[in-house]
């Protein structure tokens, strides 16, 4: 029941936001455009879109939206998975290091967590072009073309935040678990540090890392917006940016929001199950 209520509330927020541009940009009555849009939906007419401003004809939005969405979501999912995996890996490596080396890495962490994504894109693009000019080898595409998409640079940009966030989060949780009794007991029994990290700590830290997925996703969605526009990836965000009409804003914003909503609800549900399981 709660999920249905939240879904309806989010739906109404998105409807209000989608009515905004029609009201201000095209000076139409927002309620009339709302009425037209939803009466057209009942007639199965979802409206059209132009991906580029120089396209001559609008295409019908509906089957195509899934294509755009799947493209965006594949970038998002792969980058988040890579980021989280690398974050856990690096945090284990850092834990195995001596304490002296840990501090500079933590400092680097502070600065990278709020590093502006658009600056990272800019620096990466300039770096790749500079290397190409100097040596003649192309590391990756700087901008997407129809037949040749940019993959490496968008992935690096998108996975930086999940990587840094997970690194920070898992280091914190690992250090919290270090002082727990069962770890001390394992030490006392003579297990090595490596064995303890892999067998005991990882198992206990994973739920905490998974619980941070909604906040990672929230930032990553905002980053995806910048990434798609600057690298020219034809995904749902580019569609949204180039077509600011109710016909496009409403479904695409709904899809973007639902991605977050489903993950958030799923994680909350999983947490509840876990807590109930622990209580038993």
């Amino acid at each position: 029941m709660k999920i249905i209520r939240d879904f309806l509330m989010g739906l109404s927020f998105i409807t209000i936001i989608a009515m905004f541009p029609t009201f201000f940009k095209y000076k139409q009555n927002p309620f009339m455009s709302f009425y037209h849009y939803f009466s057209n939906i009942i007639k199965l007419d979802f409206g059209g879109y132009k991906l580029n401003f120089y396209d001559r004809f609008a295409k019908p939005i509906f089957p195509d939206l899934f294509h755009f969405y799947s493209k965006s979501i594949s970038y998002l999912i792969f980058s988040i998975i890579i980021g989280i995996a690398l974050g856990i890996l690096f945090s284990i490596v850092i834990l195995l290091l001596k304490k002296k080396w840990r501090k500079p890495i933590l400092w680097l962490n502070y600065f990278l967590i709020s590093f502006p994504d658009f600056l990272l894109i800019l620096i990466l693009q300039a770096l790749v072009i500079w290397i190409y000019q100097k040596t003649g080898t192309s590391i990756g595409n700087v901008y997407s073309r129809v037949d040749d998409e940019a993959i490496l640079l968008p992935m690096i940009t998108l996975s930086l935040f999940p990587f840094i966030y997970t690194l920070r989060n898992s280091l914190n949780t690992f250090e919290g678990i270090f002082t727990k009794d069962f770890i001390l007991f394992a030490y006392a029994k003579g297990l090595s540090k490596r064995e303890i990290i892999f067998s005991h700590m990882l198992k206990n830290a994973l739920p905490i890392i998974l619980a941070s997925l909604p906040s990672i996703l929230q930032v990553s969605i905002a980053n995806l917006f910048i990434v798609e526009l600057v690298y020219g990836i034809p995904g749902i965000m580019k569609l949204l940016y180039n077509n600011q009409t109710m016909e496009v804003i409403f479904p695409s914003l709904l899809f973007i929001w639902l991605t977050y909503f489903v993950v958030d609800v799923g994680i909350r549900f999983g947490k509840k199950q876990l807590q109930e399981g622990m209580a038993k």
Partner: protein
Amino acid sequence: MKKSKNLFLWIGSSILTFIFIISILAPWIAPYEIQEMDPPRFLEDGSWVAPPYPMSTKHWLGTDSNGYDILSQLMYGAKYTLLFISVTSVFRLLLALPIGMWIGWKEKKSTRSILKVIQLWNTLPILIIALLILSAVLSRTQSVQNQVFIQMVVIILLGVPALANTIHNHVKELKKSSFIEGAQVLGAGDYHILRKHIFPHLKPQLFLIWVMEIVQILLLVGQLAVLNIIIGGAEMTFEISTGDVLIKPNTSEWTGMLAISRYKIIQYPSIIIGPLIAYLMTIMSFIMVIEGLKEKDDLKQVSYELD
């Protein structure tokens, strides 16, 4: 060891003070006037050069494509950036503080439903909504003051729910303490407890929350500038030598300069270095202040919340 702990706070706050002093003294210490252009000129052998000029002793950070000195533009622009971020963050705090304190303190049906709405609003991507609203509301015919005002209002209002939620969490934490219970037993009213018991304990954390809010606004403004929503708007001009379309921000605000100069990063890297360093330095020194503040004992429990 104890002294080196707050090195971050010292470095960060001294860089910020330096930027603040420069923004005030800009009309006196800037090497060029704000409207002073360096036009294309003929050399002695008959050839001619046009802006952007590279870094030289005449222009320390070079000039932009219009021929304006970048160092002077940055000095003049510092006050716009600092003013914008401080005004928006203060108003966000002023609006969110009463809401957050009230919903954190009172647990009625009405406050709980407000909390639900706020928490659901926070699941929407703020950047996309800000972009949609701003690009619908703004137009090039509006005056600079109007554009800045609209951008401020939108950025303030979109950030209030998240901030109210953060403050609500802090108040809820404080509510568990025994001194609150004691005041309630003595018969203190809601308003009295909020003003005399909760607010003084919230005060040191509010400063940290304020700085975090500033960092978020800086990031948001930068992202919006890349998406062509520049603070104070921009006007189109033409490049003198090639006839290309150039965008000139109305105010020499840093994120706007940064976003505009990114188009020429390959041909003329000197254009972007100045704004890039200025923007990064500001954001990093704010982060240093945040990390330094967190080292302080009374603020250790505040977690780093991003949204």
